[in-house]
C-alpha cells in the first residue's frame, strides 16, 4: 500500500479586513462608554437643571461646567445622557437578540431537524407572527406588560424570535440532509448527539449573522417604541428615547435628537460591518 507522503496544504486563512477591526474598535469604545460613562460622566435621569435648558453644544451650564454636546429640554447634559443611553440601548439590543435568538434557536432546531407536525405547528405560529404587523404587536405587548426595561426586551424579543427560528430552521433543514449527518446516523448516533454535535454547529454562523443584523434593528425598534410612547421608563435614558423625545426640537435644538441618532447609526453600521465579517464565511442571505 502506498503511503501518501505529501503534506496536504492548509487552506489559506482569510484575513480579517481592516474595517472589521475598526468597527470592532468603535463598538468596544461604545461598550466601554456604556460601562465607564456612569463613573466618568454620571447621568442622573432624575436631576434636572431648568436654567440650563436647551443649550447648544459647547455651552457652559449654570453651574459653570462645559456641556460638550449641549443640554436637553430639562437642562441635563447630553453627553452624559448619550453615555447612559449607550448602556441601555446596547443592553436592550443584546438582551433582545439573546432572548429572541435562544427561543428561535430552540424552535428552529426542533422544527428543522424533526420536521413533520412539530414543524408544521411551529411554522404556522411563525407565519401568524410574521403576518401580524410587528410594530403593532410591540405596541400591544408593551401596553400589556407596562413600561420597564425587561418588558421592552420581552416585547422586542417576541417580535423577533421568528426571524431567528427561520434562519436556524433553514440551516438545520439543510444540515439534516448533509452526508456527514447521515454518516453519524449510520454510526448509531441518537437525536441529541446529532443535534448538538452535527446540526447545531452549522446553525451558529447564520444565527450570528442574523443576530448582528438584529442587534441594530432592535435598537431602532426600541426608538420606534419610544416614538409611540411605549419606550423605556422615564427614569432610564436610551438613545431611542432621547431621539424620540428630542424630535420636536429638531428645528430649534437639533442636537438633542441628532446626537443619539448618529450614535445609533454608527453602532448599527459597526455591528453591520462585524456581521458582514461573519457572513463572509458563507452564503449571504439578507433579511427583512
Amino acid at each position, binding site marked *: 500500500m502506498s503511503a501518501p507522503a505529501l503534506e496536504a496544504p492548509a487552506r489559506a486563512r482569510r484575513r480579517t479586513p481592516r474595517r472589521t477591526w475598526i468597527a470592532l474598535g468603535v463598538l468596544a469604545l461604545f461598550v466601554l462608554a456604556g460601562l465607564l460613562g456612569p463613573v466618568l460622566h454620571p447621568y442622573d435621569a432624575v436631576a434636572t437643571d*431648568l436654567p440650563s*435648558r436647551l443649550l447648544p453644544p459647547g455651552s457652559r451650564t449654570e453651574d459653570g461646567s462645559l456641556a460638550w454636546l449641549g443640554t436637553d429640554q430639562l437642562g441635563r447634559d447630553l453627553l452624559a445622557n448619550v453615555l447612559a443611553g449607550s448602556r441601555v440601548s446596547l443592553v436592550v439590543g443584546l438582551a433582545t437578540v439573546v432572548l429572541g435568538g435562544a427561543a428561535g434557536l430552540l424552535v428552529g432546531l426542533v422544527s428543522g431537524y424533526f420536521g413533520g407536525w412539530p414543524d408544521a405547528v411551529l411554522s404556522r405560529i411563525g407565519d401568524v407572527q410574521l403576518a401580524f404587523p410587528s410594530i403593532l404587536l410591540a405596541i400591544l405587548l408593551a401596553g400589556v406588560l407596562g413600561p420597564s426595561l425587561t418588558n421592552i426586551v420581552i416585547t422586542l424579543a417576541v417580535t423577533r424570535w421568528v426571524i431567528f427560528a427561520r434562519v436556524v430552521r433553514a440551516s438545520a433543514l439543510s444540515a439534516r440532509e448533509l452526508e456527514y449527518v447521515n454518516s453519524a446516523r449510520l454510526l448509531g448516533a441518537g437525536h441529541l448527539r446529532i443535534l448538538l454535535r452535527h446540526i447545531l454547529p452549522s446553525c451558529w454562523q447564520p444565527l450570528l449573522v442574523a443576530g448582528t443584523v438584529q442587534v441594530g434593528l432592535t435598537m431602532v425598534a426600541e426608538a420606534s417604541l419610544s416614538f409611540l*410612547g411605549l419606550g423605556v421608563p422615564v427614569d432610564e435614558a436610551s438613545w431611542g428615547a432621547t431621539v424620540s423625545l428630542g424630535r420636536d426640537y429638531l428645528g430649534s435644538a437639533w442636537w438633542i435628537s441628532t446626537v443619539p441618532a448618529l450614535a445609533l447609526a454608527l453602532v448599527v453600521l459597526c455591528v453591520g460591518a462585524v456581521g458582514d465579517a461573519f457572513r463572509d464565511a458563507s452564503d449571504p442571505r439578507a433579511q427583512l
Partner: protein
Amino acid sequence: GTGSGAAPEGALRAAFGQPVTDLDPYKANTAVDEATLIVKRLVFDTLVRREGEKLAPGLARSWERTSPTTWVFHLRRGVQFHDGSRLTARDVVACLKRTRSVESAQTPLWEPVVSATADDAHTVTFTTSVPLGALPVNLTLLFIVPARLVADPAQSRSPVGSGPFRVAGFTPSTTVELERNDSYWGGRARLPAVSLPFVAETSSAITALRNGDLDLLWPIPPDQLAEVEGAEGVRVETVPSWTYYLSWFNCSRKPFGDPAVRRAMWQAVDIGGLVRELFGAGAERMTAPIPSTVLGHRAQHPYAYDPAAARRALREAGLPRGFRTSLMWFDATGPLARELAQAMISAWSEIGVEVEPQSIEKAQWLERLNTLDWDMNLQTNTVTTGDAGFSVGRLYTSKANRLGYANPALDAVLAKADRAADEDERSRLYGDACKTLWDDAVGIFPATLVTAYGLRRDLAGFTPAANNQPELADVARR
C-alpha cells in the same frame, strides 16, 4: 374620501392639537374634545352663546327664569337648518332628551334638568329638580339639530346643523372640510370654506404654518415658539387659557392623608422658578386651584419654596427619611407635561422623597384615575365653561371622590354655590372653596397655560378663546 386637496381657493386651513373623530353632537366620547367642539360650533348652533366673558343669545333670542327651577327660552324665528328645514321648539326638546339619554362626560350637567317642553313653536320651558343657576352656561354645550335627526347615525359623518358652515367632507382623525352656509341666520361667514387637518407632529405643523400650508396653528408648544416667531408672514399671539396643570395627591393613601405632608411636598418645589424656566411666557403661576380668569377665582397666598421647612415638616409627620411614592401622568395631557413631572420629581428627591415617574398611556391613566389607583396624578384640566362650578364644583365633592378627599364643610359650600343663582354669591362661595382646597393642599396647582398660536398675517377677525375653542366664524382674509 380623504378630502385631500379639496379645500377651495381662499379656504381657511387651521390645525388644532387634537384629531376630530366624530361630529355627532351627542356622541359621548367627543363631548369634551376641544378640536371636535370647535368644528361643532361652526356647524351647529346652541341656544346660548358665549361671547368673551358674557353669555349672548344664540338660537334663543332671550330667556328668563320664571321660578328658581323654571327657565323659559324664546327661540329666534326663521332659522333654517342645512337641510332646509326650519327650527322649532320641538327640535330643542328632542335635543335635550337625546343628550340626557346618552351617557357622557356631560351627563352630570344635565341630571338636574327634569324636562323641557315646547310651549309653542318658538318657546321652550326647562324645569329643573333643584335650582340650577348654571343652566344658561350649560346650554352653551347643547347643540341643536332637527328633531328627526337626533339619533341618526349619519350625523357622525355628515351632520345637519344650523351653523355658519356645513360639512363638505370628513375623514375621521384626519381632516374636516367645511363650506359656507350662505343662508346662515347670523349673516354669511366671510370665508368661503374652512379646512381643518389634523397634524400630529409638531415639526410638520410648524413647517406647514411657516410655508403657508396652514393659516392657523393652535396651540404652539412653548418650546417651539422660537421656530415660528419672526418667520415671514406669520404672527404669533397668546391668550390666557382656562387650562391649568394640577398635581393631585391621593388623600386616601399614606402618607398623603396628612395635610402637613401634602403641604411639605408643595414647599419642596420651586414652583415660581419652575414655571418661569420651563414654560417662559407659555404659562402663569397659579394662585388658586383654578385659573385666575375663571369665575369664582380668589387669589391665595402662594406656598413659598422652602425645602428645609419641607424636610422639617416631614420629620414632624414621622417621615424623617422621606418616603417612596409615584407620580402618574400621560404625556399628551399638556405641553411639557413630562418635563414638568421630571422637574417636580427632581425637586422632591432633594427632600428625600423618592418618586417613581409613571408615564403611561391615556387609557391606562384613565382607568387608574377612575379607580383611585395612584399616589400622585399630574394632568391638565380645562374649565370649559369658565365657571368654577365646572371644575371645583365637580371635582372636589366627597361624592365625586376623585382624589380620596372628603370634607363635609367643603361639600356644603359647593352645594350652596351650585344652587346660587346670583353670580356674586356663587363667586364668593367658590372663592371660599378655593381657599379650603389651597390650604388643605389637596394637590399642587402649578400653572395656568397661556395658549400661543400662530396665524398667517393675512388673517383677520380671529378671536382666541380661553377654553381652547376659538371661534372661526368671523375670520376673514385681508
